[in-house]
């Protein structure tokens, strides 16, 4: 995996709360056997009407959303199904970070393993970001801070090992495999 470094991008805001992984990528697109191309169906039923035409009022269809790599969403983003297709679809669309006051456990875990950074912020920060879509933010994983153009800086929590893996491009499977001897010893004891 490529190391995750500091980056700057404008935001897209989706203020809805409890956005579940069925909205991010509906189950009917899960009959795939690869990870590629899921971005085409990201938020499918919010982005397109029943005839497949883009809904002009949906934020991702607006011209100003093009190229935005940070999604700011209402609380409890990514709840529901464990489908890793959700972070795959967000990444394929171009997102590198999701900002919310709460992010569901399995989605957060899946995101970290793919280089999509879950950023948990407090309620006032979230409310400000949701109220100011298109804001340019800088996210620095090394210092776990998010910098606003106004000069404000907000720190966010990241599990220490996940941070280490993302910063250094270490993959967790490699780490687990490096502990094979201990795993063998454990199996002999069991």
């Amino acid at each position, binding site marked *: 995996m490529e190391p995750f470094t500091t980056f700057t991008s404008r935001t897209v805001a989706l*203020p*809805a*709360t*409890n956005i*579940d992984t*069925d*909205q991010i990528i*509906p*189950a*009917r697109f*899960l*009959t*795939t*056997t*690869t*990870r590629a191309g899921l971005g085409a169906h990201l938020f499918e*039923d919010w982005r397109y009407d*029943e005839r497949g035409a883009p809904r002009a009022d949906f934020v991702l269809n607006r011209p100003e959303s093009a190229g935005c790599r940070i999604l700011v969403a209402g*609380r*409890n983003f990514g*709840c*529901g*199904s*464990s*489908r*890793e297709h959700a972070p795959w679809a967000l990444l394929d669309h171009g997102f590198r970070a999701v900002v919310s006051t*709460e992010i*569901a*456990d*399995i989605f957060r*875990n*899946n995101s970290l*393993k*793919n280089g999509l950074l879950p950023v948990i912020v407090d309620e006032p920060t979230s409310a400000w970001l949701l109220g100011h879509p298109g804001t340019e933010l800088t996210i620095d994983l090394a210092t776990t801070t998010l910098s606003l153009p106004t000069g404000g800086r907000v720190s966010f929590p990241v*599990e*220490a*090992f996940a941070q*280490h893996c993302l910063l250094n491009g270490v993959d*967790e*499977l490699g*780490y*687990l*495999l490096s*502990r*094979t001897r*201990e*795993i063998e010893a*454990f*199996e002999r004891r*069991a």
Partner: protein
Amino acid sequence: MAAETAATPAVLYIDLHLIHEVTSPQAFTLLRERALSVRRADLTLATMDHSTPTRTSQVFGGAPIAIESAARQIRELEANCAQFGVELLGLTSEQRGIVHIIGPDLGLTQPGKTIVCGDSHTSTHGAVGALAFGIGTTEVAHVLATQCLLQRKPRTLAVEVEGTLGAGVTAKDLILAIIGRLGVAGGIGHVIEYRGSTIRALDMDERMTVCNMSIEAGARAGMVAPDETTYAYLAPRPRAPQGDAWEQAVGDWRTLPSDAGARYDRELRLDAAAIEPMITWGTNPGMVVPVTGSIPRQGSDAVIARALQYMGLEPGAPIRDQPVNVVFIGSCTNARLSDLRSAAAVLRGRRIARGLTMLVVPGSQQVKRQAEAEGLDRVFLEAGAEWRESGCSMCLGMNGDTVPRGEYAVSTSNRNFEGRQGAGARTLLASPLTAAASAVRGRVTDPRELL
């Protein structure tokens, strides 16, 4: 295997890894790319349920699987299991079924085990006192290759329920009431232990219904301490320990329950007698009311307004008597034999409403055979319902079984998210009793009126 430190998570050894056709293909691809093998094929079991059709003609009759991409996914699971030496309960196996129904059915789900699967409803297996939770596909690859997962210790949440559930009030109503209290994010970061006299009085099928929906409150896992009910359930199962190994296992399992006076990070208490049959009105499982209650007024709450708009329901109206187009009895939440029995008890000697579609989908082929041996299939067919082969079916609309756009479905499944049962589908989650009663009337019905 190794405890957590400030810098590194714990390395958790997995005792049982269940896999299925939808969340495993990319994990096997990762193994091939890195020339890895499956470390413990003997602790891994595969089946197919999510994108697998439920029509008998497509399962046994040689008719092509209608969704070509689903057919490819099924063939790929067959090829992966053959290549990596993983046991597969395949399309025509008598032991196939929904992954969370066959684990307990076979007796593979046991107290004290760590159990994972690439599916969020893996929490179901916690009903026997196992630590069971859903993982993503990258972690499926981790477990296939190393039998281990990196995990931080979760916080603990005790849900204590005391008293007796009323007539017509089921485990499904209990868990919907719990989610209504906790909210859909209330359990984030926690494992729930369900405790108290009400939980102790539940049978194993009912405990599984409760643990199944822990994830709908945001908790990755839910569990019930093992007891005599658990041991009696597991004893006759084909893959439970046998003979001396059984005695040894039960001895170990008796040490598992939480200590008296154990302290939890959080606690929630409920009075069972106050719980009524519950039904959801909105677009997440926390949007739930008693079947005697009313749809909320939207006021200034944008979340409620959005849900009401999607559902097309009148704010402030009673939920009872809302028209219903489809009834679905099935899913890992409510497709065990006791669920089918309770739906059949309502339907026996009755017909479903004119114009309504009803699908009854047993949770496993074994459940199907048992139900047919009791004549439950005849009850459903004579009432006007369809009787299918096992699978996830209408719970998630990716296998050919869907609720049409705009229609209302009373469903015994676990998620009422927008489009969950098909694009534009409107889902009301309820118990098998409430679903069957609503099928008879063609309207949302309090099952106590038909018992």
